[in-house]
């Protein structure tokens, strides 16, 4: 390993440590908040509600908003799929040398498309007057980070020479994630679970 690779790997690992510590801190803070236990007799099924929440409740055909904003919706789906793939890829990068060529090429394409979707996010955010008004520096910075994460991921999957660059970007992204809007990835699960529990027990989910 070259010195550059060692430093870059160190940044990535440090970022990972901050990420894990940050996530634990968020979970502790969340657990410390009160939670009003439902005491009313149930009418439906909270469990089925949670299942609905992560399946049919997320289906684009179930939401008029997804049909209306299909481009933004599709962009979001592609962006997030590539981010999840990017996270898995990050863990696998120490073995990049033995990764099959076709897989690396596929990842290059996926991450490149993801990065384009990230860039498109700037356009969408700036073009919509309400989104522009409500956006704060955190929104743009987080978007820049994930775009760069995917772009550097594409570059490193294409050529191992860019791997240190990817590790540095990944380290910074991971370190920042628990502080800014990127933490929504964690709250997402809570939001969907609460939705399923609350409305599932009332038997209103279709």
């Amino acid at each position, binding site marked *: 390993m070259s010195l550059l690779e060692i430093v870059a790997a160190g940044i990535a690992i440090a970022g990972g440590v901050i990420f894990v510590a940050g996530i634990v801190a968020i979970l502790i803070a969340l657990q410390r*908040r009160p939670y009003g236990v439902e*005491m009313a007799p149930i009418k439906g099924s909270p469990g089925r509600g949670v299942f609905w929440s992560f399946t049919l409740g997320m289906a684009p055909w179930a939401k008029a*908003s997804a049909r209306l904003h299909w481009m933004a919706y599709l962009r979001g789906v592609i962006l997030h799929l590539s981010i999840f793939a990017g996270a898995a890829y990050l863990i696998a990068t120490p073995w990049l040398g033995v990764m099959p060529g076709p897989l690396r090429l596929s990842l290059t394409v996926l991450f490149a498309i993801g990065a384009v979707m990230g860039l498109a996010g700037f356009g969408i955010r700036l073009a919509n007057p309400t989104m522009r008004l409500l956006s*704060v520096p955190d929104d743009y910075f987080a978007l820049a980070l994930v775009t760069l994460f995917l772009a550097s991921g594409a570059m490193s999957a294409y050529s191992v020479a860019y791997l240190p660059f990817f590790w540095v970007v990944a380290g910074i992204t991971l370190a920042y994630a628990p502080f800014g809007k990127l933490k929504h990835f964690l709250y997402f699960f809570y939001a969907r679970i609460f939705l399923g529990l609350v409305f599932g027990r009332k*038997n209103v989910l279709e």
Partner: protein
Amino acid sequence: METITVEEQNKTALAREMMEKLVDRRVLTALEVCVRCGTCAESCHYYQSDPKTEHTPYYRAEQVRRVYRQFMDPVGQAFPGWFGAKPTTDEALSRLAEIAFSSCTLCHRCTFECPFGVETAEIMRVMRSVATACGYGPEMLVEIANAAIAKEENADLFRDIFLDQVKELEKEVQDKLGSSEARIPVNQKGARLLYVPLAGAHTIVPQAIIFNIARESWTLSMFDTANYAVFLGDITKAKRIAQRIIKEAEALEVQEVIITECGHGYTAMRWDAPKWFGHPLPFKVRNIIEVIDDYIRDGVLPVNPATNGEPVTYHDSCNLGRKGGLLEEPRRVLRAVVGDFREMTPNRLHSYCCGGGSGLVAVPEWKDIRMQAGKLKADQIRQTGAKTVVTSCDNCRFQIGELSQYYDLGVEVTSVSELTAKALV
């Protein structure tokens, strides 16, 4: 330099304290999960009727979110400019109160259109509580909630008035049924059901007719189900108002409390009250529609749908439907008691609010806002071609009645119980 008065400091401190107390896991999640993607805009009836930034759910939630960042989020406090934390002044609180009370009916529709399920209504509910504690609750809502408490405090004084009123209504029921045996029982210990009406005769007479025909063991509550403290987010008062009925039900040893067609009143007693009191209620809580649904299923009520031959549509009250769990019951009853039932689109879980929910109908200054926000509902009603709109909530009923005049819809607004009573043969 801007001067901050002691009163202002105190209000801000109180707002912070209230927010600290009320932001639970569910609300914290709603505050943190939104990425401001904007896909919720069209899900809101305010935005649909007048598409502007202030009418998007994420704009409204974001205003509260920025206060939260200043009050409770250490990262927001450290880097306010970066994360959009905002200093909370008296003026800002007053504006937030205006947003929470007049620009959101807590209908929860946007939650189901959001890719994350952000519960903006829950954020607004907390904001209403904070605003009420700081003295920014709409005066009229406060007066109505206080009047409900005064009724209980002076129950002896109102008992005679109530009993006189019931006697008059009982005569009406007897005339309609052609039977001097028909009764509106009051204070019947051991009755199976305690029926809780609203103040109006339309929530007593048709139901009394139905109970009499079904030969139900029932008794009429002295109190009404309206609980305006819920709209204020004032749980202390909401509990006092709910407690009147709970005490009455316990004293009469009834098995079930049946709530009339009142959206918030039903949801408060069915779903919220057990949480407020920290234990399940010692009786079952159901809505009158569920009881009628059972009667029709069991063949206890002889109904003739031809009696209600004109086209009828149903408006889902957000509180009774999406938030209360009664989506199919009213439809089953209506299919049995009307000849031509037509659905609005969208309906059930995705039904739009009429624009009068969560206390808006009671604040006269907000009539223009209500009429504007209700435009979408007016259009939906017109599209069905219905002559009668049924709704199971008196707030919706008043709002749709006004929408009918304002948009010249020419519809009559009524309830499931009234149409059922009319269909009895």
